């Protein structure tokens, strides 16, 4: 898909996410908006997937390790055709399938249940090792949050993937510089984040996490020629796409009002 089309798709996803956050009354809007360009690049240009055959064994795998951005993933999957958009209207309703964090197999296209941070990369390593044992072309993409990189299990896994030469595994860190209650670099000593992944043995790139063309170009390098797993440090803006949400961490928990939804929709149509 061309870059312009991906940009329009990302805007549509953003609008869907904001509307659902409002109607369902659920938080984590800032965290969802910051990773939508990455999801768009993966689902429309990078990954080998078929929504009509969601369990095809040799498909590429995506794990949303920062599971609190579930809303972004649900809307992306519906937009990509994994399930009907009507299912989105059941989000966070009593008896529904779509909880605030994705459950195992809750809808077609969900590869792993996440929500507790620091789980996605170990699972991804297991999936990548399974693919290698089966001699399958499957590649595995794991999206981490920068706050999530506080978790020790992330770094256990970060040491293992290069030791196993998992060149068909990639992580993308949605580096929006915020975690739930504070700047991520003032909470724990995260920086220099790219240098850390590089030092751990990963082929590392830094990228504008809202430049779908650039994200796509880099992620298409998986499997890497270097034989190392790929780490993409995606510099992003929390709340990206809506002027009054951008880089304002109140939107980690705030729910948009009907007026704010209308205002956001206006801005997204211009973008």
């Amino acid at each position, binding site marked *: 898909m061309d870059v312009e089309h991906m940009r329009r798709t990302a805007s549509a996803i953003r609008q869907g996410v904001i509307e659902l956050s409002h109607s369902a009354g659920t938080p984590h809007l800032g965290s969802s908006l910051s990773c939508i360009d990455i999801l768009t690049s993966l689902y429309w240009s990078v990954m080998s997937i078929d929504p009509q055959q969601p369990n095809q064994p040799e498909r590429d795998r995506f794990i949303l390790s920062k599971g609190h951005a579930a809303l972004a993933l649900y809307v992306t999957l519906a937009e990509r055709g994994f399930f009907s958009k009507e299912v989105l209207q059941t989000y966070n309703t009593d008896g529904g399938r779509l909880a605030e964090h994705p459950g195992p197999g809750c809808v077609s296209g969900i590869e792993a*249940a996440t929500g507790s941070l620091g*789980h996605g990369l170990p*699972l991804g390593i*297991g*999936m990548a090792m399974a693919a290698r044992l089966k001699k399958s072309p499957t590649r595995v993409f794991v999206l981490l949050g920068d706050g999530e990189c506080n978790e020790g299990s992330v770094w256990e896994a970060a*040491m293992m993937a290069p030791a196993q030469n998992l060149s068909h595994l990639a992580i993308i860190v949605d580096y929006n510089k915020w975690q739930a209650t504070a700047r991520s670099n003032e909470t724990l000593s995260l920086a220099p984040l790219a240098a850390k992944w590089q030092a751990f043995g990963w082929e590392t790139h830094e990228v504008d996490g809202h430049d779908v063309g650039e994200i796509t170009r880099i992620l298409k390098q998986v499997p890497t020629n270097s034989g190392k797993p790929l780490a993409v440090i995606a510099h992003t803006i929390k709340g990206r796409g809506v002027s009054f949400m951008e880089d304002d961490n109140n939107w980690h928990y705030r729910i948009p009002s009907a007026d704010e939804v209308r205002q956001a929709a206006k801005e997204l149509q211009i973008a």
Partner: protein
Amino acid sequence: MRNAFAAEITELALADDRIVLLSGDIGNRLFDTFRERFPERFINCGIAEANMIGVAAGLAMNGFRPIAYTITPFITTRCLEQIRVDVCYHDVPVMIVAVGAGLSYASLGPTHHSCEDIAFLRALPNMAVVCPGDAVEVRLALREGAKRTSGTYIRLGKKGEAVIHKTPPAFTIGKAITLRSGREICLLSTGNMLPVAVETADLLTKSGLSPQLVSFHTVKPLDVDYLADVFKKFSTIVTIEEHSRLGGFGAAVAEWLSDQPPQRASLMRFGTSDEFLHESGEQEHARHHFGLTAPQMAEAIERRVFGPIRLSA
């Protein structure tokens, strides 16, 4: 038990190419044969247990049957969150095999003791908790565990324990094994206490009693049919485990009992008490501290059965 584990998984891996062994950097020479035969299916995950469980779950989600192995506290309480979410919530067939259950590594101190693991693991949905009583049961438990489609926790002692079963018994996860039939007293032993339970039964027999002896190798799913039967037929039911009386096998039986109408039998539970052991010593010493040697248990059972009159007479 440890050597039986290594031998059995090598055979399982030969028959089933979905078996993958993950080790938390232990078992120095233990897996030489496995590694030689199946180099691609042996993964030393390093001293990083949380990651190891996640990797195992990722393999299981994609058709493999991983067995994750290290020392009991490190593969249970240390990575409980990963077992809960990655293995149990996803409901995938990972076998978690722990070595050094209870006080097996008494001399290494409480960091290496494990008297809480059954309590934690049995509280997790989809998880089976199996505590084999000897090396024969270890092999059978692994064989049966490999057939399950959910998580299975297998709790091993160390090496060199007495072998109780002269021939392999019929073994089903969730079905207790009667080793000796008796009357009035029924000893239910789980895990590596089985040889001590045998000794206890011998002492009781010398005292003129006729205890029934049972290897209750599965704590979850609990063999409630067996319990319903023995609580009707016997007067004293005794649970024996190298684990805390809080939350362990005896506690599981007590929970079941509390949901039943009044039973003929009363329950007596042996296990470790609610404390860390702040002194050095071997397993036998530690068992003595907690009243878990055969003479201590036999005496306590006799006191319960005969009452204080006979003892003072």
